[in-house]
């Protein structure tokens, strides 16, 4: 009954030392988040407020998108609308071509990852340089992110040291993080100075002013946009919020939830092209407007990509980002993957114990675990339910719904096969993988109880 996730997770856990390190690293982020969250007495009110703002904005997204685009245009920004990934890639390519740009530096954007933009542009002769340190490491290593906020945290200092020796000619054997950061900086400085265009993602788009707000710790969004004259911002349509008053709610939540910092080192606001420069904003749909109409799953759109749900998720911590088949892992990734393509990514839906820790940390109160439960209900109707599991459930149901059969079943160890699977008492049961089979008492409770009155009266 294994799923794509469970198979990959099993492999991940073969290296127990690494698995322990991985669990502790991400639990460490959860602990830092707790400390920061608990330093804000009104934390839970902020979460409620943030959730309500997102709900309100999403329910009126047509109005706010128009407002945002109008304001941006008024600021001298060119606004583009991309209905899907292909259109987005084409628009960015066209902007670069129109401006004779060959090389683009970019700060972190999960949206460009979603659209496969780098590959698309590289195939057409563009040079794309990631400037977020984690993303740069992954680009040099030809890997994809294993987490949305700390994308290269699955790599150790030694992994990075060896990579830099090969790619950036750092000193052999010197894997000191400060030194390695210095090496990356020097190399990136050259890239910034020679780029023709700079791209950022967007943490927020402010409808009232048309501003793009980007939160980074490295200042790389500012470097990417203050040297090249051509600036492009990529924003998913769900990232629009009404105004700066709303922003103040999210800014208090974002970094605290993500990395346990009171705020990111840089919160950068981009409003208009620099003198003599050009600024473009590409607003991307890529399924979002459809999901908005999905009664059971629209809440996923409230997400502001802090990654807190991954850090707290025990399944993520014990299986790593690459065990999920969608490019975003953890509770958020399970849900987003299913929204993108429910057949292709159904193998991730098993990766949840329904412990619901994710929705308790989520700063915008997305019902992540409940949605995973809902996706499980939908698997059968899309033909992706595991037949063995289905039969087991049907069998259980048949017995459990029939008093006579149930009593017969619980009366004999043999028929116990019809109890919920984890109570089956035979060596072939997957339960035996981790557990010693339980000893059954001679009598189930309902038999034992027969001697007494049903009521105390």
């Amino acid at each position, binding site marked *: 009954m294994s799923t794509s996730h469970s198979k990959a997770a099993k492999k991940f856990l073969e290296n127990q030392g690494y698995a322990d390190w991985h669990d502790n690293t991400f639990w460490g982020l959860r602990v830092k988040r707790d400390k920061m969250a608990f330093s804000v007495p009104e934390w839970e009110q902020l979460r409620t407020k943030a959730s309500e703002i997102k709900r309100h904005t999403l329910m009126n997204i047509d109005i706010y998108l128009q407002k945002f685009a109008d304001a941006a245009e008024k600021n001298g920004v060119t606004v583009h609308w991309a209905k899907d990934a292909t259109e987005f890639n084409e628009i960015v390519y066209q902007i670069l071509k129109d401006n004779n740009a060959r090389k683009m530096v970019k700060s972190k954007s999960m949206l460009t990852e979603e659209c496969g933009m780098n590959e698309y542009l590289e195939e057409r002769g563009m040079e794309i340089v990631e400037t977020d340190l984690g993303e740069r490491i992954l680009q040099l290593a030809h890997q994809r992110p294993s987490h949305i906020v700390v994308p290269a945290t699955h790599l150790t200092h030694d992994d990075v040291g060896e990579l830099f020796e090969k790619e950036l000619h750092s000193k052999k054997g010197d894997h000191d993080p400060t030194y390695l950061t210095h090496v990356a900086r020097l190399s990136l400085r050259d890239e910034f100075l020679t780029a023709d265009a700079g791209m950022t993602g967007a943490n927020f788009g402010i409808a009232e002013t048309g501003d793009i707000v980007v939160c980074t710790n490295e200042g790389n969004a500012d470097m990417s946009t203050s040297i090249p004259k051509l600036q492009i911002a990529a924003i998913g349509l769900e990232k629009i919020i009404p105004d700066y008053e709303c922003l103040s709610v999210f800014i208090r939540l974002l970094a605290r939830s993500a990395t346990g910092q009171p705020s990111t080192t840089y919160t950068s606001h981009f409003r208009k092209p620099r003198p003599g420069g050009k600024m473009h904003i590409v607003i991307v749909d890529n399924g979002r407007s459809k999901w908005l109409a999905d009664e059971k799953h629209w809440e996923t759109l409230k997400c502001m990509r802090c990654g807190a749900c991954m850090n707290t998720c025990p399944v993520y911590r014990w299986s790593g980002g690459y065990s999920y088949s969608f490019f975003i892992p953890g509770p958020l990734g399970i849900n987003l993957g299913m929204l993108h393509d429910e057949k292709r990514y159904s193998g991730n839906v*098993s990766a*949840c114990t329904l412990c619901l820790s994710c929705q308790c940390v989520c700063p915008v109160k997305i019902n992540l675990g409940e949605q995973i439960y809902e996706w499980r209900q939908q698997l059968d109707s899309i033909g992706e339910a595991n037949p063995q599991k289905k039969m087991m459930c049907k069998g259980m149901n048949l017995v459990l719904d029939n008093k006579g059969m*149930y009593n017969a079943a619980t009366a004999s160890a043999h028929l116990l096969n019809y109890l919920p699977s984890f109570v089956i008492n035979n060596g072939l049961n997957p339960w035996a993988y981790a557990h010693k089979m339980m000893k059954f008492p001679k009598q189930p409770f309902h038999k034992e*109880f027969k001697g007494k009155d049903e009521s105390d009266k």
Partner: protein
Amino acid sequence: MRVGLFIPCYVDAVFPKVGDACFRLLRHLGVDVTYPKGQTCCGQPMANAGFAKDSALLAKRYDDMFKGFDYVVAPSVSCTAFIRLQYPHIMKESGHECHIARKTMDMVEFLHDVLKVDRTLGRFPHKVSLHNSCHGARELNLSAPSEKMEPRFNKIKDLLALVSDIEVVEPERYDECCGFGGMFSIEELAVSKQMGERKLARHAATGAKFITGADCSCLMHMAGINAKEGKFPEIEFRHVIEILAEGL
């Protein structure tokens, strides 16, 4: 006040002593408690695996069985949470109104919130590590979830404080999941085992001789792992109601 006792299928089959402890404790406290015949399962295992629709008949049977009671109590937080939170939806989809879901309580909740028990119960002279099950903490509010910025409380601890000579401790990461998750433990064998092993080790690190909690399924998971691996042979598992009813 008429109280119905619901003993979920796996408690019935594997932990009859827990059912017995519930009945004894309720009677000891003077509650008019009935254990209706013909009980089976709440349907949670199937629903969490993606077959909630198949639980509709079980839900209807449960609702009919307990309709006349003021409260239904059960010694299993995840079954209770499932009934209270999911039955109304499941029954609505099959065209029935659910009467009893909101009257269904976990034993701990019932003792703490309805009976407001404050008299001294039995004696249990041992060090006990408390397992805060996910659905107890995050769905039934038996304790303040560790993620939330709200005043700390723990109803299980409050009740255990009524037992003489007991020492109650909590493990590190005190409400992190043990990795059982029903069908999860079958579908995600490796992760489920890993989580269970680490959870067990954290309980053991407290130096407690007993692990207790309000959900038999978490205890069953950890006990099964412990029995197979034999790392902590001195540790025993007790449902919290067994401890509360000890010696009564």
